[in-house]
């Protein structure tokens, strides 16, 4: 089988997403390579967040949302009728635009995922798991003495790393990040970007960003999306290595966007 050899963690084939009668995204064919960071860029309304959210079926939660085409993960179509969205999300985690820790302690924020996944281990094993997740999210040293403190009592940047740690604790293969730095200051942003490079060794990361500098410095591959003027549906314009997209874009529209002429 070619599935085992596939270098892609997620592959979309001719994927379209509808909100009711409105087609938000049309005909996206795109592979998210394993252990790499793929950035989805484009102006507002180009459908990049919709594409990201369709990779772990978060769009299911929006009433009237519907996906056509295929999204393959480990050779399975995520939108096949027998696929459970809950199971999909346990393998493909998500970090959101605004830090959204639960109004619980830092410890309970991390332990929540393992607990709902039917945690069987002992208390000390859970402690270890929490510590590992916080270390992997580069937050352990800052909060190790305050694990009982509310997840909302720390700074915005720390909250976002807490959310990343929370996602890591369920041990997903892929982490989707929806503009994870848009609510953060530059120093916190840099920390998250450094963290993404660390996480790349063990995880596949797909990130939506408004910030072209962020895409150019913090990703391996870049996909550029743009809204079709005729039917207002977002479509993939160009996809390639980040160096290629930013230095020698093939499409004229990509070139115009990255040079800041619109968007």
């Amino acid at each position, binding site marked *: 089988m070619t599935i085992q050899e596939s270098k892609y963690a997620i592959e979309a084939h001719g994927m379209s997403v509808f909100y009711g009668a409105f087609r938000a995204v049309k005909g996206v064919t795109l592979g998210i390579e394993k252990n790499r960071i793929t950035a989805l860029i484009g102006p507002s309304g180009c459908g990049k967040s919709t594409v990201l959210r369709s990779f*772990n079926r978060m769009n299911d939660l929006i009433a009237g949302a519907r996906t056509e085409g295929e999204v393959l993960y480990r050779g399975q179509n995520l939108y096949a009728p027998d696929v459970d969205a*809950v*199971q999909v*999300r346990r393998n493909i985690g998500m970090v959101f635009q605004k830090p*959204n820790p*639960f*109004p619980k302690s830092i410890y309970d924020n991390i332990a929540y995922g393992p*607990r*709902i996944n039917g945690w069987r281990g002992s208390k000390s094993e859970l402690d270890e798991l929490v510590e590992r997740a916080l270390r992997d999210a580069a937050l352990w040293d800052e909060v190790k003495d305050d694990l009982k403190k509310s997840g909302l009592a720390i700074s915005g940047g720390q909250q976002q790393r807490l959310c990343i740690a929370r996602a890591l604790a369920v041990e997903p293969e892929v982490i989707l990040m929806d503009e994870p730095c848009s609510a953060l200051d530059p120093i916190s942003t840099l920390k998250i970007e450094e963290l993404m490079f660390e996480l790349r060794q063990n995880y596949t990361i797909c990130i939506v960003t408004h910030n072209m500098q962020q895409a150019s410095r913090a990703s391996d591959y870049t996909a550029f999306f743009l809204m079709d003027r005729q039917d207002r549906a977002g479509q993939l314009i160009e996809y390639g290595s980040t160096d290629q997209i930013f230095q020698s874009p093939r499409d004229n529209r990509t070139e115009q966007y990255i040079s800041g002429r619109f968007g």
Partner: protein
Amino acid sequence: MTDQVTVSSATQPRRAISAKIVQLQRRPRIGETIIQVVLFFCGFVSIFTTIGIVYVLFQESLSFFADPEVSLSEFFTKTVWQPQIGEFGILPLVNATLLTSFIAMLVALPLGIGMAIYLSEYASLRLRSTLKPIIELLAGIPTVVYGYFALTFVTPALRDLFGRDTVSIYNNLSAGLVVGILITPMIATLSEDALSAVPSSLRQASFGLGATRWETAIHIVVPAALSGIIAAAIIAMSRAVGETMVVALAAGASPNFTWNPFQPAETMTGHIARISGGDLSYGSIDYRSIFAIGLVLFFVTLILNIASRQIVRRFREVYE
């Protein structure tokens, strides 16, 4: 005056300033004053009414306790309430109130919170906007209707279920169950408000970790809304304690110190309603006794209200 304003040139600065000061003078706004007085009066009426009620309650209760036939300690400890023979122990009345309220909460809490979770976490927008007004409509049914519902439907059903010898025609269980149904919409709508106020970003985070709807509702949304839910429960509890018509109709008309829900008994409110409806002579000790009961009732609901405020403050999970 307009002339003076226009003269504000550099050569005559002082005159210009004085002209402006003249313009700043206060003009009487009679309409504004009248409105302020009217609004103050509106607020004052509600405060004055409350003070008046409390004053009358205390006044009559004081003269009740001043009566040589009544002793304060017996009032709170004796288990017989027989005004005809001068026995004033409030316990049987308190006991019946607590029993019916407890049964009511047993029905209303799971039912109301379940409804709220369904409406807020499961129902589609369309279903919610249809169901919520219907539930609120339930709260508008006159309580006397609920009372006859208890007496003519629930009680016979209970008697068929448990046997006519066990269940009296008037009993606490039937009254409690129906009071429970009566306060369920209150718990449901108030809790639903609290649940809906939880930001959807928390739900998204939970779903993103692979949680099901139920896990998200129970572990994330309900804890975040807990203060509102507890407040709803306590408000409903005060309502159950103060509910009169259902218990007066269905629970019975004889003070009875019993914890047996199948037995008839009379609650504080039921007793007040019955006695004040009868041929009660003004100024008699019987007459004054109902004010003493009213005062106890007042304190019970006051304590519940204070408790709810405290709990809301204590458990408030700040989620943003």
